[in-house]
């Protein structure tokens, strides 16, 4: 295939290999090093997209990240579809497949383009004024249609097989932007030996040197110098150079987020390469060398494919060797477009005319253009572009009116001037200042340790840029403590100059006109839309932006913001700085969710915590439930059993013989020190001073506001040592809560806290046969009821390993909790299991544990309490030390509403029909016949089928519950009302005889 627009001898891709690709099903060939844009242009393709609202045909505006129009869908394979890719950034690889977006049935014939014809209706803010009748139609009719029409590309529909990587990095000097300024700054800093990072979003360093044919540095072409300088930097140990890397966000304290694109430009990235890598860099100093972006001219139908920025046309020619047309027109308000015209002309492209809005500009480029025989028109405007799918002409008129002349062209190169890229500076919370003379916002007041250099700082000309950047790099290094190095400041031999331009609508698109002169291409915002917004009272630039959506497209207004602001200011009759600039927000250019997420996907989304005994449970068919980050064995179904059958069996087994339960996830804290008991007195409601070593107590912890925060059994191992247990989910926050009081409120106490949750595996052995199962394996502990009564703890050995053996029960049966060092947990479990088998014991999971404790009315903090429950509400007043002068929560729980009558209290519920199991969370009412909204007096917190009781049981929080014993209440369900009786909380073995049974 012949690339009709590739100019032999032009550009820098001369040796490159051919790369085949397809666009909308049509096969093309480009060369390696092309972007998709340059390759399409080499093939003469300009029409690549449709706009958001009017579905107008669009081509390439730019050759870079600021591109608003040329967004395509790239499909590597079925699972690797990427919407909204800028063709001007996507590098070509052999086999690339791209599709246009937001058109149906095809790009050249798009039904949605009726919007363009009807566009007079679709003015700015039009949605707010209509689609309101009839009321239901918004949801049922209008919104679905609008949603379907909006939205550019298509989201992927399969999980992404690519992976994304991440790295934290630190450096002394971070240089953002790898044009002449950035390279110079990086060289200056790097020579001093400090740690330097240099990043640029392009594949090749050089920035504007990619197109500035007039720059010569150190005796070489500017671009060649840039490559040599970067090669030198790459070779230095103290420098990291990142290409294809966009600094997207500048956060507090010189923390910068960058995304490096690694796989998207490769034909076969390979499985080991991440698609992208997120760099989170903390830099002592940041040098911003982010350059400037050319603006378009705002005139009628300036969006026709083939109408583009002059610098883009120049980049396509000088870097890629591609001519954007054969007969181009130029429309400018500054000098830089002349250089483009000159380069194209020299490459053999006919320049039909240069139209310059300025009256009598002078300068070498103008002379050169004339000398090359180009027609140069001053004081004239292009008032209209002709053509539809491709520009075919430009209509020229004296800028103050007069005769029109239409000139046939196949491309228009335009330049309204350059906008410094102050995005990152502004994100750093620096304040920009408006330079009235040059009509641009430049960095004003700095908020962080950074400095802007070159074009983004409003510095014109290569000489001044290099001086400034080199000095900035030197100073940044010095600021972080570097010694001075020998200067090797690059020498500039030749440079191009910059000049000003204009802001706002060009003649023919000014106030009073109704033409479509686009300010924001992608969102179809025209100059008249902005004027209309102002007329409708949108006087703040933020209002104008939101009302018109100017600057809110995927390019985030890189080319449109300044024009929009200028038009708004003109309409308001205010100077630009008084109207203000919209806020620059991260990201600078869109970044993938994947790059932000990095490794945190799948199993690395969140840790999965498993106990030492988990492998045994897995091998024995346990079904697991998520409890916080833990996986806990929920129940152990035997073949043919469903959950209910398994749980019923497990519950009965525990009460008839014994059961083994993995309680390892319970939080455990060792409280050590001579003041340990004093500390416990302050942190728990209970008294602790008099608890004998070797004994245990159930403790309740409150927050300062008086509500239950956590609970657990605490064993006193020695006068100065407590083994505290917490709930599974509460462990980290309880530890933090205790540390907080220990460190900041009670620092005079000699006590320390150590988390031992993971030191000990915990095996609960519960049931009448529990002692028989454990005893044979234990050494050094007298297991008799006299020596080891309920609620006591001993240290000794089990299976030859150290144990902290608790005699305690969460089932109401005789019970033990065997703590062993975690690495031995599974082996000791297996030994106990073997012993248990002799007695017909079984394993039980968390569900049976819940049922068994509910049969006894033991509460679960977080299920039967919810952060609004006091000890009294839960019937736990007995656990509050009445004689204590202080403990956390003592004052909070005395507040008027916490001691008021009628509070919700924890009670038992029995359904009138014992077979009916209530739903947890179901609401309770006194009068089931009342109309909705009903007066709810409580809710069910726990509810189970109890095989041991032969009926359902439930716990509930009920207003004034303890005064309602025996009362009938009602649980209205969608299909029926369930009658319940209020009861005590203990459903099984009310006298508690089985603890020693």
């Amino acid at each position: 295939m012949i690339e009709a627009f590739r100019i032999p001898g032009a550009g820098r891709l001369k040796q490159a290999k051919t790369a085949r690709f397809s666009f909308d099903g049509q096969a093309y060939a480009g060369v390696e090093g092309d972007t998709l844009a340059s390759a399409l242009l080499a093939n003469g393709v300009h029409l690549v997209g449709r706009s958001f609202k009017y579905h107008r045909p669009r081509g390439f505006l730019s050759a870079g990240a600021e591109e608003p129009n040329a967004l395509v869908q790239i499909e590597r394979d079925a699972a690797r579809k990427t919407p909204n890719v800028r063709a001007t950034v996507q590098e070509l690889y052999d086999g690339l497949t791209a599709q246009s977006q937001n058109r149906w049935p095809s790009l050249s014939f798009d039904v949605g383009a009726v919007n363009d014809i009807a566009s007079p209706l679709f003015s700015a803010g039009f949605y707010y004024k209509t689609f309101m009748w009839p009321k239901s139609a918004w949801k049922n009719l209008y919104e679905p249609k609008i949603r379907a029409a909006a939205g550019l590309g298509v989201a992927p529909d399969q999980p992404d097989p690519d992976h994304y990587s991440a790295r934290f990095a630190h450096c002394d000097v971070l240089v953002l932007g790898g044009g002449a300024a950035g390279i110079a700054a990086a060289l200056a800093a790097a020579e001093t030996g400090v740690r330097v990072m240099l990043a640029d979003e392009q594949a090749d360093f050089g920035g504007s040197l990619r197109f500035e044919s007039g720059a010569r540095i150190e005796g070489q072409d500017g671009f060649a110098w840039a490559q040599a300088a970067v090669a030198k930097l790459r070779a230095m140990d103290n420098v990291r150079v990142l290409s294809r890397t966009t600094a997207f966000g500048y956060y507090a304290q010189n923390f910068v987020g960058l995304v490096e694109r690694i796989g998207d430009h490769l034909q076969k990235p390979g499985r080991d390469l991440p698609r992208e890598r997120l760099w989170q860099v903390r830099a002592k100093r940041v040098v911003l060398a982010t350059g400037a972006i050319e603006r378009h001219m705002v005139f009628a139908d300036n969006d026709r494919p083939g109408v583009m920025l002059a610098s883009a046309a120049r980049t396509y020619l000088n870097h890629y060797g591609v001519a954007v047309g054969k007969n181009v027109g130029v429309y400018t308000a500054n000098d830089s477009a002349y250089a483009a015209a000159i380069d194209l002309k020299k490459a053999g492209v006919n320049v039909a005319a240069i139209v310059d809005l300025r009256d009598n500009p002078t300068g070498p480029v103008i002379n050169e253009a004339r000398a090359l025989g180009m027609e140069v028109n001053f004081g004239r405007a292009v008032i209209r572009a002709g053509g539809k799918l491709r520009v075919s002409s430009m209509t020229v008129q004296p800028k103050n009116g007069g005769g029109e002349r239409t000139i046939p062209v196949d491309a228009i190169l335009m330049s309204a001037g350059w906008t410094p890229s102050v995005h990152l500076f502004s994100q750093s919370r620096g304040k920009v200042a408006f330079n009235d003379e040059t009509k641009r916002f430049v960095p004003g007041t700095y908020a962080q340790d950074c400095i802007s250099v070159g074009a983004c700082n409003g510095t014109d000309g290569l000489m001044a840029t290099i001086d400034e950047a080199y000095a900035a790099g030197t100073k940044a290094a010095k600021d972080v403590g570097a010694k001075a190095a020998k200067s090797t400041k690059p020498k500039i031999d030749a440079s191009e100059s910059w000049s000003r331009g204009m802001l706002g609508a060009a003649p023919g698109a000014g106030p009073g006109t109704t033409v479509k002169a686009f300010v924001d291409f992608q969102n179809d915002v025209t100059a008249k839309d902005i004027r209309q917004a102002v007329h409708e009272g949108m006087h703040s630039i933020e209002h104008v932006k939101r009302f018109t959506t100017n600057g809110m497209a995927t390019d985030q207004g890189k080319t449109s913001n300044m024009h929009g602001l200028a038009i708004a200011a003109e309409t308001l009759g205010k100077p630009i700085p008084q109207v203000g600039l919209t806020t620059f927000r991260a990201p600078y250019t869109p970044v993938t969710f994947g790059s932000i997420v990095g490794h945190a996907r799948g199993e690395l989304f969140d840790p999965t915590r498993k106990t030492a005994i988990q492998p045994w449970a897995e091998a024995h068919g346990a079904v697991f439930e998520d409890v916080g980050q833990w996986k806990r064995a929920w129940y152990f179904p035997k073949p043919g059993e469903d959950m209910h059958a398994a749980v019923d069996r497990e519950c009965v087994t525990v009460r008839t013989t014994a059961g083994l339960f993995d309680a390892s996830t319970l939080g455990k804290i060792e409280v050590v020190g001579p003041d340990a008991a004093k500390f416990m007195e302050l942190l728990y409601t209970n008294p602790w001073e008099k608890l004998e070593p070797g004994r245990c107590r159930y403790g309740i912890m409150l927050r300062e506001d008086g509500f239950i925060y956590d609970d657990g059994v605490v064993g006193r191992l020695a006068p100065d040592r407590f083994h505290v247990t917490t709930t599974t989910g509460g462990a980290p926050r309880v530890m933090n809560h205790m540390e907080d009081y220990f460190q900041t409120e009670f620092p005079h106490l000699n006590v320390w806290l150590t988390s031992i949750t993971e030191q000990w595996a915990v095996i609960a052995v519960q049931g009448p046969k529990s002692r028989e199962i454990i005893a044979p394996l234990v050494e050094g502990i007298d297991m008799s009821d006299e020596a080891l009564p309920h609620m006591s703890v001993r240290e000794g050995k089990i299976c030859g390993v150290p144990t902290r053996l608790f005699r305690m029960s969460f089932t109401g049966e005789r019970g033990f909790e065997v703590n062993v060092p975690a690495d031995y947990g599974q082996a000791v479990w297996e030994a106990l299991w073997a012993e248990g088998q002799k007695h017909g014991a079984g394993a039980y999971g968390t569900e049976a544990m819940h049922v068994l404790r509910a049969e006894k009315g033991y509460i679960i903090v977080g299920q039967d309490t919810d952060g609004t429950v006091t000890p009294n509400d839960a019937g736990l007043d007995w656990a509050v030390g009445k004689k204590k002068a202080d403990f956390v929560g003592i004052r909070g729980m005395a507040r008027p509403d916490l001691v008021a009558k009628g509070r919700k209290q924890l009670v038992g519920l029995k359904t009138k029909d014992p077979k009916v199991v209530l739903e947890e969370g179901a609401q309770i009412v006194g009068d089931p016949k009342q109309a909705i909204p009903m007066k709810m007096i409580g809710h069910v917190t726990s509810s189970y089928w109890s095989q041991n009781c032969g009926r359902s049981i439930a716990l509930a929080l009920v207003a004034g519950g303890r005064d309602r014993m025996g009362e009938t209440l009602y649980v209205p369900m969608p299909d029926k009302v369930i009658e319940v009786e209020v009861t005590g909380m203990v459903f099984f073995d009310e006298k508690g005889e089985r603890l020693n049974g």
Partner: protein
Amino acid sequence: MKKYSVFAIAREAMRGHKGWEAQWSSPEPKKEYDVIIVGAGGHGLATAYYLATVHGITNVAVLEKSWLGGGNTGRNTTIIRSNYLYDESAGIYDHALKLWDGLSQELNYNVMYSPRGVMMLAHNVHDIQVLKRHVHANRLNGIDNEWLTPEAAKEFCPPLNISRDARYPVVGAALQRRGGTARHDAVAWGYARGASARGVHIIQNCEVTGVKRAPNGAVTGVETTRGFIGAKKVGVVAAGHSSVIMNMAGVRMPLESYPLQALVSEPVKPVVPCVVMSNTVHAYISQSDKGELVIGAGTDQYVSYSQTGGLHILQHTLDAICEMFPIFTRMKMLRSWGGIVDVTPDRSPILAKTPVPGLYVNCGWGTGGFKATPGSGHVFAHTIARDDPHPINAPFTIDRFRTGRLIDEAAAAAVAH
């Protein structure tokens, strides 16, 4: 006020849209008003609107330090729902929801209230208990909220990952079909237009710098960057800045202000048809009519008025989004931003009279104020006009922390968004 209609649009289309009038006027402040509202966000503007329309009080100024609708209203993920647990919360949010339905017609301004459904996911047994408690309480309060199986949840939201292999599999969901979204800017603008048309002065770029009180303690007006403005009553509706304004009046508040971030993706064709929220995985998402995925992040951990937040907060949010929707890793974040949310100890708002005569406060909405906008404005207008709270906002007192009569939705184990 010229009415918006299809005919008006057709007429304006014929003449280049030059006939539209300003949606609100920009008057100079008068010396004194009957009521001053501090803060021209959605809640403040709605208050002014209902003062005028319901209570006939039109000598009202709404003072805004920046541009109207530019605070949390304009930095919003716009989720609307009323499936709250407690009667007090359900009361005020459902009052709002009823006003949302019909608000476009009431204001003659399309606020694009879209009852596309809000689905809250359960990932474990505890979530099921909590969400079912909501479902049951809502039903008996007359608020729609239904329980869905994972399969039904996926049917309602096809891109949702309900694989059992997910780190936190979806085990069920609660769906409020009347929940949804609205267009945030339109809410502020619609109320501003309606209030302005009835004589309310909306005064932008006018920052309150002091609250003046008479010797008897009652408010007499406010000092501003545009001079002193007298008022018989002052309603503070300043969101993240409520503490700051209330301090000027000598009232210390149980509030802390945190950065809250949100982000949108690039626009894509419709893919997420409803609002999906998960408290366990910590994320919520919807898709705007423009096609952007709208994603709310959590708050940063420290008090801040900087309107920025840390990148790691967005990371945690997107981790969660990609866990629920693994197909979205190739989507791109287009824009992120930060707001300032004022949070009370029980995460419920304060909408009340204050110890200072003539001073009223509406604050503490935390991360969830947008959905309440019409209801909040409606009952706050009542509170100011009558000097007595509406029954709906009567529980949301300023002294409930002293008494302990909290409305703690978060403690009841669901994070309020």
